Structure formats: C-alpha cells, structure tokens
C-alpha cells in the first residue's frame, strides 16, 4: 500500500510540476488549489447534490448547513476584497432571467439523476464511479452545446445584472448575505430531524477548508471558483478539432472567449482547477486501504440515460450561468442575486429529480449465483 501511495503522490507532484513548467506559477498554483478541492471534497465527503437529497429524503440537514457555513466564510472575506481590489478581482455576477431560472431548475433535476453536480461529477469520475465518468462525457458535450445557444436563452426575458453590493453597498450587502444564509441555516435546522441538525467535526473542517481554497482561487486567479466554463471550453476544443467553425457562434466569437479558445487549456483558470479536482479525488480513492466496491451496476438503458442526463446537466448549467459552484457557491459568496435565484430554482428541480431517479436509474439484474 505504501508503494501505491508513493506512486499517487508522485502523480500529483508530476501534474503540479508539469503545469508550473509549461504554463507558469499562476497555473501551477491553480492546479494545486484544484487538487486541494479534490482532496477535501472526496476525502472529507463534502458534497452538494447529496445533502440536497438528504434534507428532503431523510430530513438530514448537516451537509446543507455545512454548505451555508462555507459560503458565509467566503463571503466574509470576498466582499471586502472585491470592494478594495475591484480592478484586480472580479465577482461571479450574472443576470437573472427566464432562461437562467429554467436552466437552474433543470440542472437541479439532472444532478439528482447522475448523482452529482458540477464538482460532484468530476469527483465521482476521479474516484472511480462509472456513472460519474459517463456523466462527465455528457457534461462536456452539454456545456459546449449550451454555449452555442446561450444568446437565445439570454434573449428571453431577463433583468440586468443585480448584486447586493450594487443595491446595498459592500458592507450592508455582506451583512444582508450573512443574514440570508443564517436564515436558511435556521430553516434547515428547524426542518431537520433531531440528531441530524448540526454538522459533525468532519463537515466543519471541510467547510473551513473549502472556503480557504475558494478564497485562494479568488486571490490567485482574480475570479471566483467555477467549473462549467472549463468543461464547455474542452467541448469547444474537441469540436474545433473535429472541424467545427466556431467563428459564427456569438459566444465563442466574443473576444474573451475567442482568446481562451485560441490559447492552451493550461492557461484557463477553471480548466486547471477542474483537472486538479479530478486528480485529487483519484488520489483519495487510491490512498484508501480499500478503494470501495464498484458503483452499483445499472442496466444499459440506465447508462444511456445517464449520458443524456449529463448532456442536460452541462447544457442547463450553461443556461443558468453556472452550476452549484459557479452560480450557487461563488454567486452568493460574491453578492450576485442570480446565486440566490439559482438556489431556489435548482432546489425545486432537485426535488423533482429525486422522484425521477428510481424510474431512470434501474439496477442491472444480479447474475445467477451472484451474492446479493
């Protein structure tokens, strides 16, 4: 086992060194931050989709409360930083619109079908879950497809970008955000069953570490933690390699996005943290004495539906200006109204997804003679 752990540590170090040498110190630091996210999310089992399911199905609010704690911690530092260094750091602000709300709703449903959100899909794939790997392939394709139609969706009824800083100012906006998170936390505690209200030490640590990594992401990259943009970029690059001409696409013709398309993935912020996240999850799985049994086998039809749900997950995340990370976590923690609306719409969608899950994900029949 020592040899295996040594090999995995060398793999992580090689990835860091490769990124540092190829793309410079910022890229190396972002890869390290991504690996940190992977180690914490998988190692301390801090998730997004799982706690949303648990509060509904088992009245277990511990994971959801830990999410609010992490977001509150990030907001407490990010708001002053953004106010003082607005020229160097940017927030995750996006407009609230019909397409955005629909996207968040559909994303919430799809994430319960593939049993993982944006970060969860990468974590599941890296930690050896076949459903996660299949969903990741779909997610890459879906977020690219969503980018091609984003202009149409944003052309539907949409408000301008609204932030709490813009409405209330940085200081009052921060207090309003913290009060909002505390109110949601109180609602979760009230709703949860006795014994399932307050997070265990593991989740407190995870919330603090995730917040620290998210702030490091902001300080190093100049922008908050995100997932979806990188996956869509990978899809665009694969499409280009296949002969697609993206010059006619409104999204990819935008100067900022065109620059990313023409530059190496190793210079793209969200791609770097995504790769690190997957590697970190893989490392945790290999560090464990027992990596765990394969995920439950499903029928072929169910795997096909997981691929389709992954596509929908990526497409809807693009419509919604982010997933649980870019919109919910980073949106709320940097003051975007769309983060709050995303939370409400995705939570309703998630509840629907829970009802669809047993219909869509059907276990494969046990072979004769197999142990149950």
């Amino acid at each position: 086992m020592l040899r295996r752990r040594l090999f995995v540590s060398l793999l992580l170090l090689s990835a860091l060194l490769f990124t540092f040498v190829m793309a410079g110190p910022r890229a190396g630091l972002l890869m390290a931050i991504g690996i940190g996210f992977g180690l914490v999310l998988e190692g301390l089992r801090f998730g997004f989709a799982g706690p949303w399911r648990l509060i509904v199905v088992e009245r277990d609010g511990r994971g959801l409360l830990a999410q609010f704690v992490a977001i509150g911690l990030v907001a407490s530092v990010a708001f002053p930083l953004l106010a003082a260094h607005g020229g160097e750091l940017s927030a995750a602000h996006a407009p609230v619109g019909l397409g955005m709300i629909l996207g968040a709703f559909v994303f919430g449903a799809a994430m319960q079908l593939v049993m993982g959100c944006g970060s969860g899909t990468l974590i599941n794939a890296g930690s050896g879950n076949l459903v996660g790997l299949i969903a990741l392939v779909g997610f890459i394709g879906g977020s690219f497809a969503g980018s091609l139609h984003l202009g149409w969706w944003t052309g539907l009824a949409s408000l301008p970008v609204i932030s709490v800083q813009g409405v209330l100012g940085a200081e009052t906006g921060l207090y309003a955000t913290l009060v909002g998170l505390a109110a949601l936390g109180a609602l979760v505690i009230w709703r949860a069953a006795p014994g399932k209200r307050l997070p265990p030490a593991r989740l407190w640590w995870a919330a603090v570490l995730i917040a620290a990594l998210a702030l490091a992401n902001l300080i190093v990259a100049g922008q908050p933690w995100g997932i979806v943009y990188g996956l869509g970029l990978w899809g665009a690059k694969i499409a280009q390699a296949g002969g697609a001409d993206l010059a006619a696409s409104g999204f990819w013709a935008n100067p900022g996005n065109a620059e990313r398309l023409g530059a190496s993935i190793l210079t793209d912020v969200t791609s770097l943290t995504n790769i690190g996240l997957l590697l970190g999850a893989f490392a945790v799985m290999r560090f464990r004495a027992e990596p765990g049994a394969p995920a439950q086998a499903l029928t072929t039809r169910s795997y096909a539906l997981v691929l389709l749900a992954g596509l929908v997950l990526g497409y809807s995340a693009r419509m919604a200006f982010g997933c649980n990370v870019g919109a919910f976590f980073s949106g709320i923690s940097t003051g975007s109204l769309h983060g709050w609306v995303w939370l409400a719409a995705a939570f309703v969608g998630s509840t629907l997804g829970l009802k669809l899950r047993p219909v869509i994900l059907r276990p494969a029949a046990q072979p004769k003679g197999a142990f149950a």
Partner: protein
Amino acid sequence: MTLATLPRQIVGISAIALIGAILALDLARVGAPDLFSAPPALALGSGQAPTGAHCTAQ
C-alpha cells in the same frame, strides 16, 4: 468483468486518460503556452485586470 463491474481504479484511470487525451489534443492544436507572457503568480496585488473566463461569462 463487464463495463458495469469495472473496478474503481480502472474507472478513475480512464477519467485521467480522458483529461490527458483532451490536453494532448489541445497541445497538438494550439501548442504550449508562452511562458514569457504568463501572468504574475497572484492576481491580487498584480495591478492587472482579471483576464480569465468564468461560468458567468456571456
């Protein structure tokens, strides 16, 4: 061993291989980044406007 009963190690390595293939394809098409135009290690304190793209990009 069927697709559905692949050990976790194999699935995890496949995920890394997928990322590796995308990286290799990208390096072959656009080449390696120009180290001389690499940004400072930290955006905070750099005096430069953020240039990265985020999920909230339009």
